[in-house]
């Protein structure tokens, strides 16, 4: 809770400072501008080896989720984007601010030294639960990731929003009037 509220405060602050800056520079302000983070220590969620900003990629630059997590739509597993995927862009995109550049350098190093980063897992189901991503995206649409993963596009650092408990799954299945058969997920 506490750190959460502080994040909110931080975001608000950052918006206040950044938006006018955007306004001055002629072009229309983007729908959402990722905040500038001064104190990463106080961010919600686990710290990742590379400070990857979903809010920058998915939020500000409107990169669709399925661009990187492409297999979520066609497979049961979403997989983790390969370093190549990152490098693909970041060989050119160097980052606007020194902090960005520092992080992007990590990506390039990972690519050059063939040492993929070890991301900290956030969303995990126990092994006896099978969650076919493809069916859910098929049913709810490619924008529906937020239903379970929260509004990642506005998260500075990703953290778990939904409890991902069985009761939580069931409530949605009931509401959407889809099956509650045990062997749909447990086998």
């Amino acid at each position: 809770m506490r750190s959460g509220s502080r994040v909110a405060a931080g975001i608000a602050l950052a918006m206040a400072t950044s938006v006018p800056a955007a306004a001055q520079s002629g072009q229309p302000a983007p729908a959402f501008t990722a905040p500038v983070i001064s104190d990463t220590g106080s961010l919600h969620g686990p710290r990742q080896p590379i400070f990857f900003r979903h809010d920058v990629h998915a939020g500000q630059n409107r990169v669709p989720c399925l661009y990187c997590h492409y297999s979520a739509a066609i497979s049961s597993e979403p997989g983790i984007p390969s370093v190549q995927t990152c490098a693909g862009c970041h060989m050119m995109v160097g980052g606007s601010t020194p902090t960005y550049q520092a992080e992007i350098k990590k990506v390039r190093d990972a690519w050059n030294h063939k040492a993929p980063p070890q991301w900290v897992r956030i969303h995990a189901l126990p092994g006896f639960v099978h969650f076919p991503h493809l069916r859910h995206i098929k049913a709810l649409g490619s924008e529906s990731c937020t239903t379970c993963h929260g509004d990642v596009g506005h998260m500075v650092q990703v953290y778990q929003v939904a409890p991902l408990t069985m009761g939580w799954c069931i409530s949605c299945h009931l509401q959407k009037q889809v099956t509650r058969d045990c062997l749909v997920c447990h086998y």
Partner: protein
Amino acid sequence: MTDTTTARPPERATGAMSYDYVTRTVAGTLGNPGRGYYTLLGTAVTLLGIGILCLLFLLRYGLGLAGYSMPTYWAVYITCFVFWVGIAHSGTLISAILFLFRSGWRTAVYRVAEVMTVFAVMTAGLFPLIHIGRQWFFYWLVPYPNERGLWPNFKSPLVWDEFAVGTYFTVSTVFLIMGLIPDIAAVRDVATGWRRKLYAVTALGWRGTNEQWRHYRPAYLYLAALATPLVLSVHSVVSWDFAMAQVPAWHETIFAPYFVAGAIYSGCAMVITLLVPLRKFFQLERIVTIRHFENLAKLCLLTGMIVCYAYCVEYFVAWYGGATPEREAFVYRAVGRFWWAGWTMNVCNAFLPWLLWFKKVRTNISALFVISIFVNVGMWMERFVIIAIHLAGEPFEPFVRAGYNATWADWGIMAGSFGWFFMWFLLFVKNFPAVSVAEVKEELAAPRRGAARHA
């Protein structure tokens, strides 16, 4: 303890007992345990320790440590469960049913029987928890509101079991406590020291006022009235664990009455087993007399005959019914690999009770004691045969027929259960009146003017 409670009244030990004699004799059973008592208690606790040790191994490594093997998925643990539930039955029978029948002789023995009941159910209740594969999830059988929105399956005889045994434990405990209150009050008024305080609390302020008796009596009656169908239902439900299954030699309509009779049979036997030494150590010869033993023996005889009949019917139906698997199952019981178990059960439960037709035997304490032991063994064996042996001799699927060998894990935990039971029992009899004071007095002639005064 001080002398006041233990001092025997000076009067002659013959002739009619006085109220005072009863009070003091019963009070005399409490306190100052001797070396013998501690040895017994020690043994019980040791056994319990062994059981707990085995259980810890079981929890760590899994049920594989026990002797199970496909298709024998149930064995010693469930046998013990049924055995102990069975033991529990005579208690409520004697205290409730005989109470309704107004048979006075029960007053001297029903407390022991009831105590036995409560602790036996306590013991029995442990086994279903021990025998399941993931003991740490036992509470999933209980209908409690949970995040997943799941409920237990009320069609499963195991859930019936859980309700039946749970109810039985609660009700028999309530019944025991009800009976105890006036007696605790009685010993309270003759006790001193810390016991006096203990009884003062546990007597719940009983003084035997007309108001108290006025509410107490009917309540006791209703409890008896409720407990009577309960006692019959509980073992029926237990028997349905088997009768509801398709396994030949389980799937029998006779099971409910057969099991209830068997339960009472084993219960009475156990009462005798416990009462004989108890009477001796506590010098209750005048309160618990041969007459009481003979009546218990008669109960044994009756139920024993029913059990004997049930055995015959089982075999008859197996033959007459013409279902091959059923037939095979009973051939297997008689001459199969576990014939010894089958015959132990037949001899102990079906043949021995015939001795009880003779008054000589019924009135011979030591004879009764021996017989009661045999019946206990026999009844355990009966459950073992029904459960383990008939599963091992799976008649439907010849290809998986297998043997069964119990292991240290089975015996250890079984021994533990005996330790657990006797520990509680021993603790109880030394600290609370093991014989009803008030009700025994009801059997005595009330002192009247004109009548000779005692003391």
